[in-house]
């Protein structure tokens, strides 16, 4: 068997969707849709607020409320959706 081709990732000119890390994707998502307020928090506080925000998002989407950035949550964040926030603000 030949070794699987090592995929080369190319940055395409004009491609708005940057290759983000899952953490960046999640933080942007939680802020954009109102689960987390945009003011910066530090260290421990930030972790607590992220976990709480994740749980709220998981509840809204009918996912298991783990408070973790698990696979199903990341997949849900990549799905096409409406731009209106989920948490009224």
């Amino acid at each position, binding site marked *: 068997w030949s070794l699987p081709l090592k995929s080369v*990732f190319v940055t395409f000119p004009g491609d708005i969707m940057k290759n983000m890390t899952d953490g960046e994707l999640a933080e942007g998502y939680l802020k954009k849709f109102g689960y987390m307020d945009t003011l910066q928090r530090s260290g421990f506080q930030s972790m607590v607020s992220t976990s709480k925000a994740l749980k709220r998002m998981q509840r809204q989407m009918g996912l298991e409320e783990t408070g973790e950035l698990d696979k199903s949550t990341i997949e849900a964040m990549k799905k*096409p959706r409406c*731009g209106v926030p989920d948490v009224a603000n």
Partner: protein
Amino acid sequence: YQTFEGDLKWDHKDVTYRILNYSPDMDSALTDDAFARAFKVWSDVTPLTFTRLFDGTADIMISFGKADHGDPYPFDGKDGLLAHAYPPGEGVQGDAHFDDDEYWTLGTGPVVKTRYGNADGAMCHFPFTFEGKTYSSCTTDGRTDNLPWCATTADYSKDKKFGFCPSELLYTFGGNADGAPCVFPFTFLGEEYDSCTTEGRRDGYRWCATTDNFDKDIKYGFCPSRDTAVIGGNSEGEPCHFPFVFLGKTYDSCTSEGRGDGKLWCSTTDNYDDHKKWGFCPDQGYSLFLVAAHEFGHALGLDHSNIRDALMYPMYSYVEDFSLHEDDIQGIQYLYGPKTGPDPKPPQPTTVPYPDPDITDPTNDPRPTEPTTTTPVDPANDACKLTKFDTITVIEGELHFFKDGHYWKMSNRNDGNQGPFSVSERWPAVPAVIDSAFEDILTKKIYFFSGNRFWVYTGQSVLGPRSIEKLGLPNTIQKVEGALQRGKGKVLLFSGENFWRLDVKAQTIDKGYPKYTDVVFGGVPNDAHDVFQYNGHIYFCRDRFYWRMNSRKQVDRVGYVKYDLLKC
């Protein structure tokens, strides 16, 4: 479902909309139709009507745009955010924006409406065969004028039905040239152009001149996307070029190589490595109808739902045979009430079956604001001789009819009513005239309202009388005329033309109340003197009649209290 803070909604039923521009992905006639069907989703279940305006300011202004499209919420290229809309109100409120970096279809791939030809504007039929070859997209084969065409049936050779496909050589849309086709080459700012361009624009839309010199004639239009055109990327509207070279390898079809998100793309020149010109390949696309129906839900006052199958769920999912989910219906009818058919007319009695004191002499039964000694009801009198009760409610699963210190019971088990029983024997603290009562589902506590006071019985013990202001009701209320349990721990309290929602546990009225009864419960009298819940229906009583409403807030029956409920 959720509504926006303060239950934002239109204060009129005849809502207007205007389509400000179109997407190059779909023929404007298909876009018009998709939006009209999306509005019909909501007008089918509410009293709302939607009228299209072609100029001026409409309630709902609809537009397509890309990335930063003029409001503080930029779109994000292909996929991701598809659209957004604002809740009802002035200015940008109520408007709906659609991301034109998406591929707009009806959800199942290219929708190619033909023009001219001999198929009366029918849609292309893919695949179709022509001279023994099978085509899954429009082609210029068989023609010398380079116009793309398609068959509108599976076999052109047999049926000879065809039409021309969207092409800038055939027509443009928008602009100021009334749809005239492009003229190539044309001059713009002294430069010559042989194809559509985005030059000179910030919104990324492709356009062309419809004369050979734009600088002189200033005539232009937007270019429709060909069905084979790529989406997004940096070559919007250009067709894929097959074969093409990428990282030294040759490709004869779209590929996801080089990307981490698995999306299919192609080069629009023969060599990506040299020219770096690319775009995403057409896929199923997003249903403009479904996304518009969702966004119009926002524009009418609905926020996102957490019911996965509801239209107002935030994520997109294609549904073939769409119908509104109960959650969406409850949400929109909470704001605007149900579709009002003809007002229910109570049956007009041909003869008055009983001497009916109430309608002959209104002074006969003045509604005391303060409980007074009651006019004695002869206990031998059965309930059938009365036409109007002080209140009707369900206690311990049985309908209770209260009148002047007595009550009758109707159980589901048998047809007869039992009574009269004395109120003071069972609930001694409660006055003879009770305006309304309800049994809290969770705690089994029984609340009695009379005038501006209320009592709460828990078994034999009683709390009260207390002022209804303790619950957060305004002191302007003369009396509470009806009570409707709404799910666990919430009760709607009716008075006059309004109702309030009581949080029983918190013992206080929820924010955002009162609401007008006839707005939320359309089709019932708004001066009902009694409102109660029974066997899954809501009953509004006025005089001897009742209006029955089902769970979809539709009035499904109007009848006589004494015949239908008391079984006289």
